[in-house]
């Protein structure tokens, strides 16, 4: 692990455990999640609904709804500093400035009774300071808000309008403008395009890519869409039942798929070159997070499940410095060879 020390990490999550404790029982949202993003790079966090993707994003901002959510264990380091050690006041300085988050549904993410420019200016007014170190004047914040609108492709004079006067794609642009208004070091994008039409999706994605490159922002792209990952990410973490089960560079994951679940995700996509092939969806549903299997969480849905999978948690096996997988199918020797065993 000595290599890790050398890497310049913007985000470093280790063994994060988050539980939601309600009367109905304890939901284990995250079970020892590890995540690393290098400065300026984009990591794709890929998984099904309910795998703990959004919880991961909210944990970084310390915005897990509490109650019922509790961070039980682990550490979250932003540029080397543990956010878990920070006070609420310190976190407020980090949110929106050092780390921003774009939420999934632009329709509900904006305050319906505030003008769009006020919502952008708010984040500017909180964080930005003038030359003397004093908070900037609100009129300057509004000016910056209009600039941000132009930047995301909305005429600045529409800033005085309210969210209901905007289309879904435009709302998401506004949300992105809010997120980028203070040039954050890290941008968490939680399925930013899921709620949008396909054509708008491409536009928004392209715009985000451009802005990321322009400002050198690190990004955590939370998605279930492998197409988006291929488009925008440098590295990929596959999350299942609150744990990263395979992680590697884009090439590692796309060309040297190892975990049966990752394999299943790819097989669920239609392949235009081989249209005669039938889709092979992953059977069944995510395990109930209040009652996870004792062994490998994917075991009940896995075509290659063995006896050991039912009783023990699989260890982590590395294929190279970065690419690892958590599956009993592999050991130090066979992981370097071909694809998924049995393929």
């Amino acid at each position, binding site marked *: 692990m000595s290599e890790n020390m050398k890497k310049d990490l913007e985000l470093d999550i280790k063994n994060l455990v988050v539980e939601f404790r309600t009367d109905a029982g304890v939901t284990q949202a995250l079970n020892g999640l590890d995540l690393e993003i290098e400065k300026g790079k984009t990591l794709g966090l890929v998984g099904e609904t309910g795998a703990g993707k959004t919880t991961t994003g909210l944990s970084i*901002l310390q915005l897990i709804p509490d109650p019922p959510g509790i961070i039980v264990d682990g550490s979250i380091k932003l540029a080397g500093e543990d956010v878990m050690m920070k006070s*609420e006041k310190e976190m407020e300085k980090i*949110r*929106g400035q050092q780390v921003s988050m774009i939420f999934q549904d632009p329709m509900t993410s904006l305050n*319906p*009774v505030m003008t769009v420019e006020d919502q952008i200016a*708010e984040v500017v007014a909180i964080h930005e300071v003038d030359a003397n170190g004093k908070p900037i004047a609100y009129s300057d914040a509004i000016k910056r808000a209009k600039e941000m609108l132009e930047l995301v492709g909305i005429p600045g004079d529409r800033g005085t309008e309210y969210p209901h006067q905007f289309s879904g794609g435009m709302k998401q642009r506004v949300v992105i403008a809010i997120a980028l208004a203070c040039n954050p070091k890290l941008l968490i994008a939680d399925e930013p395009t899921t709620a949008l039409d396909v054509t708008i999706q491409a536009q928004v994605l392209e715009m985000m890519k451009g802005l990321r490159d322009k400002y050198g922002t690190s990004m955590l792209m939370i998605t279930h869409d492998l197409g988006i990952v291929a488009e925008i990410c440098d590295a990929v973490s596959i999350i299942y039942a609150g744990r990263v089960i395979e992680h590697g560079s884009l090439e590692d994951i796309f060309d040297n798929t190892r975990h049966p679940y990752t394999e299943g995700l790819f097989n669920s996509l239609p392949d235009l070159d081989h249209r005669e092939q039938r889709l092979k969806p992953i059977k069944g549903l995510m395990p109930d997070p209040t009652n996870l299997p004792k062994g490998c969480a994917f075991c009940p849905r896995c075509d290659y499940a063995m006896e050991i999978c039912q009783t023990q948690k699989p260890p982590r096996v590395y294929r190279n410095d970065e690419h690892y997988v958590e599956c009993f199918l592999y050991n130090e020797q066979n992981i370097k060879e071909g694809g998924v065993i049995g393929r």
Partner: protein
Amino acid sequence: MWKYILKRIVALIPVIIGVTLIVYFIMSLAPGDPAVTILGDQATPEAIEQLREEMGLNDPIIVQYVRYMFNLCRGDMGTSYKTKKAVSVEIFSRFPATAKLSIVAVIFSTIMAIPLGIVAAIKQNSFFDGFSMIVALLGISMPIFWFGVLLQLLFSLKLGWLPSTGNDYWYSIVLPATALGFHNVASVARITRSSMLEVIRQDYIRTARAKGVSYGTVIKKHALRNALIPVITVLGIQIGSLLAGSTLSETVFAWPGMGRFMIASISGRDIPSVLGCIILFTLCFSVCNLAVDLAYGFIDPRIKSQYK
């Protein structure tokens, strides 16, 4: 904006016609001959018949109604059977007292209720939340008149702090307004709480938090205005029950208002006075509801955009 207001006022006209028609028709069901009421039992049949003809009582009810409405538009509500004075004079001499009582009660209850509901929502499941919601539940379960009697018993008879009846001092209004407003405090606090609870779970609150806005500011700046939208609806409905409730409060505290006059007129079979009171109350209610509808626009831009 003005066009919208005008449109709403125009839309109010058929409602007012309908309301007056219903009230007029119901009151016409009252037994007994108004001419007999005025002239007394000893009057001759000829005299009664003559008066009936003069008053237009022999015309069909719909003609009587149209005539009444025509006079109403000129501010003429007929003549009281009892005092022989114009009903409009009788009513408008008492209207300010009732208006004062209702307005003080509305303001008092709103100022109390909204912060109470907000704090209860923010501190959901705390002792304060539980305690204030139990008090609110008691408040909506307690009849206005009984609460009024209890206030009288404690603050006037036992402690002697406040006058138990009348409107002789500026502080005379404290007890009747409290009795009238308490019911409102309870229901407005309850709706504020539940509305606030719904709003603070919304995505845009999370967005605001993710921007680095402190929790207190999020509540004040983002949650409150959204949470108030359903509260305003309830306030509009509450005004209706408040107007009717003022009758009870006025009766308990002998407050010299329209409600008490109406009750006295009912027992005196003074139909024009009763009719006038009920119609004026209803008109007030309609106007208040219109005001509440227009108030939406100031809070909710989604409704404001419909003004155009």
